[in-house]
């Protein structure tokens, strides 16, 4: 936000006098009115410049957050699915796969205020009152254990808060730290003795399938002879050892992963069919036999052909439902991590009848 309102006032005066308001070379455009600048110039700088007057406390923030933010960011700012986690992660920045949140990574509180104010909630940006933004930011601070529950954030208290990672950033130093990449003469021959392949993308297998854009194409692609695919030797997979008893940790993890399924599938006591069939006792059951659920034809046919849900079949189905069973009603894209699949299968097994 501008620190020089004098300039704006001057422009407004000359406009009122009906004089040429400015002397640009081309004389194009028109002076911006103070109200227009006020409406658009809402950015907030690290020193708090640009903050409107207002305040909000942690408790109010919790309520507003639950109503307007939690659907994506979780009740405790822990993040739902792939949506950003806003809390936690402190001390993880030098770990493999660090968790970067407001508490662990963001250097300035102004950034949080500015971003919530201008861009959130997703799909209803710039609908929050200033006091609501203060309250939400106060709650995010609280969920990161940075303030107590009686904290009130306001334009007055704003600069009292310093985020833990404020000193964690340094200005681009590539010209010095990577000076050795400016090489006069790059090596052209005998640059190394041996070359070994150390990692392969196909082993990881996270590349999207190249489905074509039309239904005709999809059908024809499916009809193309599979044998024409070049045969690639895959390194032996880790053998899957059948578990005698369910690993409680794995079951717990599976309960979390199952959140992705919950919108359609119910499991446990009192569960009923909804968009998808109930999943009690699904492990070991024949496909397409849950009473009262209207399955797709391919699923019914597969059951009649003897498809039974075991580790192998469930894993294949959950990885790529529509690839495993063309025509299934399950519109879920699939679980990409093998570990998540194992966990969800373990979780489902814990509801064996």
């Amino acid at each position, binding site marked *: 936000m*501008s620190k*020089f309102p004098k300039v704006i006032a001057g*422009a407004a005066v000359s406009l009122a006098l009906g004089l040429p308001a*400015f002397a640009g070379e081309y004389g*194009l*455009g028109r*002076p911006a009115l103070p109200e227009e*600048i006020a409406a*658009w*110039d809402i*950015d907030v*700088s690290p020193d708090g410049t640009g903050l409107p007057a207002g305040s909000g406390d942690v408790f109010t923030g919790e309520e507003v957050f639950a109503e307007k933010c939690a659907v994506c960011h979780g009740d405790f700012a822990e993040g739902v*699915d*792939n949506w950003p986690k806003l809390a936690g992660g402190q001390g993880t*920045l*030098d770990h493999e796969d660090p968790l970067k949140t407001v508490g662990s*990574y*963001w*250097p*300035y509180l102004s*950034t949080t205020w500015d*971003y919530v104010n201008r*861009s959130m909630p*997703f799909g209803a*940006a710039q609908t929050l009152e200033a006091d609501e933004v203060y309250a939400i930011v106060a709650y995010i601070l609280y969920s990161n254990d940075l303030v107590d529950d009686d904290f009130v954030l306001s334009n007055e208290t704003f600069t009292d808060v310093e985020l833990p990672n404020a000193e*964690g*950033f*340094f*200005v*681009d130093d*590539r010209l010095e730290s*990577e000076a050795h*990449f*400016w090489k006069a003469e790059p*090596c*052209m*021959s*005998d*640059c*190394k003795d041996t*070359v*070994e*392949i*150390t*990692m*392969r*993308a196909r082993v*990881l297998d996270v*590349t999207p399938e*190249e489905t074509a*854009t039309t239904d005709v*194409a999809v059908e*024809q*692609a499916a009809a*193309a*002879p599979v044998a*024409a695919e*070049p045969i*690639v030797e895959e390194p032996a997979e880790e053998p899957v050892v059948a578990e005698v008893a369910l690993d409680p940790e794995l079951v717990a993890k599976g309960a979390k992963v199952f959140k992705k399924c919950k919108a359609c599938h119910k499991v446990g006591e009192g569960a009923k069919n909804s968009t998808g069939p109930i999943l009690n006792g699904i492990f070991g059951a024949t496909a397409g036999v849950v009473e009262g659920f209207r399955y797709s034809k391919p699923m019914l046919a597969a059951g009649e052909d003897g498809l039974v849900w075991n580790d192998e079949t469930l894993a294949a189905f959950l990885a790529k439902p529509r690839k495993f069973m063309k025509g299934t009603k399950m519109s879920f*894209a699939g679980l990409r991590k093998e570990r998540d699949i194992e966990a969800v299968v373990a979780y489902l097994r814990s509801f064996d009848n």
Partner: protein
Amino acid sequence: MSDKADDFAPSRRRFLAGAAATGVGAAAVGAGQAAQAATPDPLITEVQDWASGLGDGVDATPYGLPIQFEQDVVRRNVEWLTADTISSINFTPIHALDGTITPQGCAFERHHSGAIELRKEDYRLMINGLVDTPLVFSYADLERFPRENRVYFCECAANSGMEWAGAQLNGAQFTHGMIHNMEYSGVSLRTLLEEAGLAAAGDFKDKWVYVEGADASSNGRSIPLEKALDDVLVAFKANGEALRKEHGYPVRLVVPGWEGNMWVKWLRRIEVMDGPVESREETSKYTDTMEDGSARKWTWEMDAKSVVTSPSPQAPITHGKGPLVITGLAWSGRGAITGVDVSIDGGKTWTQARLGAPGTDKALTRFYLDINWDGSEMLLQSRARDSSGYVQPTKAELREVRGLNSIYHNNAIQTWWVKADGEAENVEVS
């Protein structure tokens, strides 16, 4: 393949099925020998439908789309990368393009709150802050300033980001497709800032401009005034026509050589300031985390980088041994590409490639290496050099400085393992 259009399946699998068949023939012929036809080719000896009947009249497609046989040359998304497609990214099919200009229709998209529809009539651009007279321009105003035409690449800082920790995605489109290269028409930002007057800014040295978009994310970035007055464009045309909505119609910012996130789309406001805003996109995102947990910020320039686009996993060799065109793209945010070296043995030996045209400032350069492939496995790499003297590093060299968690600004040398059957795979090598 059948000559009937409705038989055509634009899938890679189908493509390979055909390729396998022709591959056998080509292999039988062998390198250095002209192919001999056993029987006359009916495509030549028989009158084809298209040589007898009539095609479409003019106006069949008032705005032309690529012919149906090219419908697999499209942007693609990697679903697991983001929570949804509204705040997400997709990838340019660089494996299937040639030359250097990216058609707008398949140039990658990155939105933070979705691609909006903003009419020219409703468009306003405000310049405020440390200027002599804060101004508002309409779209029609912008068209009356002197105009420039410039070709620049736009690369997302996260391009190849998924490859930091290891070979992940199998295809040049996915590993290097967050890039496009267009010819922009627009007004230099300097012209607009000077129209508002910069006497109020005083010394330019420690001043910044904050630029923001009109969409719901109102993505905002801070740019040093020095850069803003250098080569930044306020663009309204790309490749000769209006910007597409997904690229910021009607007006976007072009920040040559600098990370794509700064190329604010639906540009609505430019504020001259005495410091950076430190917005979300320049603190929590687009900063490079080092091994010790500290993070580099303001890493704006995109370092020199290149990739072989063909052969590559989505563009396997289908003709067997013999003449082979190895081609790819090179670019640098610090200047022009001066040379590209290609290795087929994983970096033991390098051969200088031929540039399709001399490299130009901060734009894509096409390179070619024409070889007589003997049908043996290759570990294909390319290495770009730019006018600043920078040589594209290996992944190991980058990791030595930055560790494994940087995500952004991965400009490492890419390796494709091309097998004897012509298939290629994304790999890492020692």
